[in-house]
């Protein structure tokens, strides 16, 4: 069960209309290392993970990732909502407009639609937690690329927050991995 909370996790300040940046942000909406991939990856891996620590973490981080999907979508929406067709065309988003006007769609910055092929699940907890740790690092790297592409203070603030969350999640998944390894060694003694 999930309960919706009618607020963003972190305030998103959009100071100027920046369509170029809106397009780049799509990669964290529906791209391979984006927030949607993260949420589905963790929430889907929960069912076969053995320890309660990892069950809790996949549930809680998966839920936080849904809040990040909402933040990224909000940023894209606010950056694009007042744009004219001419502005969209000039920002290389004419093809986005042609298909769906201003609607959001989970796709990467090139318009490639989100696919479940971006995530993995193997039931092996060592494998799955390594996948999760790698995913957090990949997302951190992408946020650093995005930070390099903008000098807008509001944008930088929100992206820095999201980047920092990847670092914390990586840390927690590392701890969950250690606990799983201890659990597996314990079982051998029995």
């Amino acid at each position, binding site marked *: 069960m999930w*309960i*919706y*909370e*009618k*607020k*963003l*996790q*972190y*305030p*998103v*300040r959009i100071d100027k209309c920046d369509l170029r940046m809106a397009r780049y942000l799509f990669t964290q909406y529906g791209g391979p290392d984006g927030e949607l991939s993260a949420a589905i990856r963790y929430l889907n891996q929960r069912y076969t993970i053995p320890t309660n*620590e990892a069950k*809790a*973490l996949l549930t*809680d*981080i998966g839920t*936080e990732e849904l809040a990040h999907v*909402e933040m990224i*979508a*909000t940023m894209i*929406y*606010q950056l694009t909502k007042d744009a004219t067709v001419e502005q969209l065309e000039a920002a290389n988003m004419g093809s986005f407009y042609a298909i769906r006007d201003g609607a959001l769609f989970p796709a990467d910055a090139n318009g490639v639609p989100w696919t479940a092929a971006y995530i993995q699940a193997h039931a092996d907890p060592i494998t799955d937690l390594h996948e999760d740790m790698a995913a957090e690092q990949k997302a951190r790297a992408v946020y650093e690329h995005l930070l390099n592409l903008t000098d807008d203070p509001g944008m930088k603030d929100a992206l820095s927050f999201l980047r920092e969350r990847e670092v*914390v*999640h990586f840390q*927690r998944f590392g*701890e*969950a991995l250690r*606990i799983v390894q201890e659990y597996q060694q314990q079982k051998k003694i029995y």
Partner: protein
Amino acid sequence: MHERAALLHQIQQAEFAALELQLYLDTHMYDQKALMEFNHYSKVLSTLKQEFEMKYGPLLSFGFSPSQYPWRWLESPWPWEEQY
């Protein structure tokens, strides 16, 4: 509008502290100090949430927040419309 944003910001801060402690506690279940901090922020959050909801309507759906008349869940701004 200014006051609403300020109160919302306080909620975001308290909830962030609680969330961060929750993730930490997921891998440190015996850390009593962290648990005390978590319970502290949980209390702060419910006080702030109550104040916000009295003024600006429900934050949570499905019965986790009460509503005044008429059904205040419909009120704007929605999170993606919020101007900070």
